[in-house]
């Protein structure tokens, strides 16, 4: 395992499915997901970790897909927006985003939903300020954020047991 290689064979469980591919060491996770596995739900924005469009989930925690090498995901579980959507995990978030008009062009939306899913699971009693702080790493150029915060707040209240 210690010998340097320019390419490496990796096995990753993506949205519940085991995949094995040989990848270049320099390919980051988001390019691997999009280009090798055609999971284009996650997006590439700034490609240096700032905009959040590439946010995916690795081993249960959200990460920047552009700041992780695909080779580092060997043996890991990766969940993309496709998986989160198909499993129904974020159905309430997706519905709230639609109802609150929290998506316009949709470019930030997958990353925003992964971040939102992390928050509503971890801290459903989050205040609007806490919501804003949590999604501060996901840039949106269209909505001005209010509708997104509204949608997440609605879901938080729903999950915490109150009425939306």
């Amino acid at each position, binding site marked *: 395992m210690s010998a*340097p*290689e320019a390419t490496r064979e990796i096995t990753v469980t993506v949205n519940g499915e085991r995949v094995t591919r040989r990848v270049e*060491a320099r390919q980051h996770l988001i390019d691997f997901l999009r280009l090798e596995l055609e999971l284009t739900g996650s997006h590439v924005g700034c490609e240096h970790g700032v905009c959040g469009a590439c946010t995916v989930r690795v081993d249960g*925690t*959200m990460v920047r897909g552009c*700041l992780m090498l695909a080779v580092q995901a060997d043996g890991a579980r990766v969940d993309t927006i496709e998986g989160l959507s198909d499993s129904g995990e974020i159905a309430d978030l997706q519905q709230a985003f639609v109802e609150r008009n929290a998506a316009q062009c949709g470019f930030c939306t997958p990353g925003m939903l992964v971040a939102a899913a992390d928050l509503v699971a971890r801290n459903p009693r989050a205040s609007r300020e806490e919501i804003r702080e949590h999604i501060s*790493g996901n840039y949106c150029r269209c909505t001005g954020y209010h509708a997104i915060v509204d949608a997440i707040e609605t879901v938080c209240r729903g999950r915490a047991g109150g009425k939306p």
Partner: protein
Amino acid sequence: MRTAPGRDLKPSPFAYAKPSDLDGVFDLLERHGDGAKLLAGGQSLVPTLALRRSAPSLLIDLNGIGGLSGIAVIGDIVRIGAMTRYAALERAPEIARHVPLLAQAVPHIAHAAIRNRGTIGGSLAFADPAAELPACAVALDARLVLAGRRGERKVAAGDFFKGLYETDLRQGEVLVAVEFPAQKAPYRSRFAELARRHGDYAMVGLAARGRVEGGRVGDLRLVFFGAGPKPAEARAAASRLEGQDVTDPAIARAVAALAEDLDPPGDLNASGKTKLHLAGVLLGRTLRGLVAEGS
């Protein structure tokens, strides 16, 4: 893949290795020298590679080595493994209790997704001038544990940061842990940072620690970051406050003394003069926070 010169956003090709122990790391470092870079959290390294500011021939992944992460309280010392993620520090009750300066600082580091991967060791070894943790380490007199083929050595944080991205880490060495003294009353600490938006690189920040008794401060360590190539200790400002009550005139005297301590370079965010002014603002806020009830 062809990209326009100066606009490359993919790394140059490199080889990758993931040793399972430190000896494997030392072997690779010896064989590849300058051509190898260590990969910890990757949150600073990977963008550096993507923007082609760096083009190593080999990346040595530290994530496969056991025993490099975790938080242990051993007597009066809190030992933190270098591979401990920021998110783990954020959630650890031992950090909130024994190293509250870190607990205050970590939420300012970038954003949650980055904190899930980035490590304290990476922050200290990379020594970005705008980074939070190097200043905290200096303010708290932390000791950095460096491992090499021949064994370990410990370096005081104040001696570790030497210049712009320059540390005392030698060729063939790996930062494996950092030891912080557990904070005990009457010592308190306070962290503050100014950034344009939450999570942005700091325009200027301050990691402060001191003894507080009845509104008077003593043994103050005031360490600014984002105000120079490395953490900048404001000794003149601290000496103006030694044994003093934190009153408005005392704060003003300390702020005035900052011009002796700091000479911040200007950057995209602010001129040097503005940064010095902002450092004074942070100093006032931090001092008042330090002596406030319930701190």
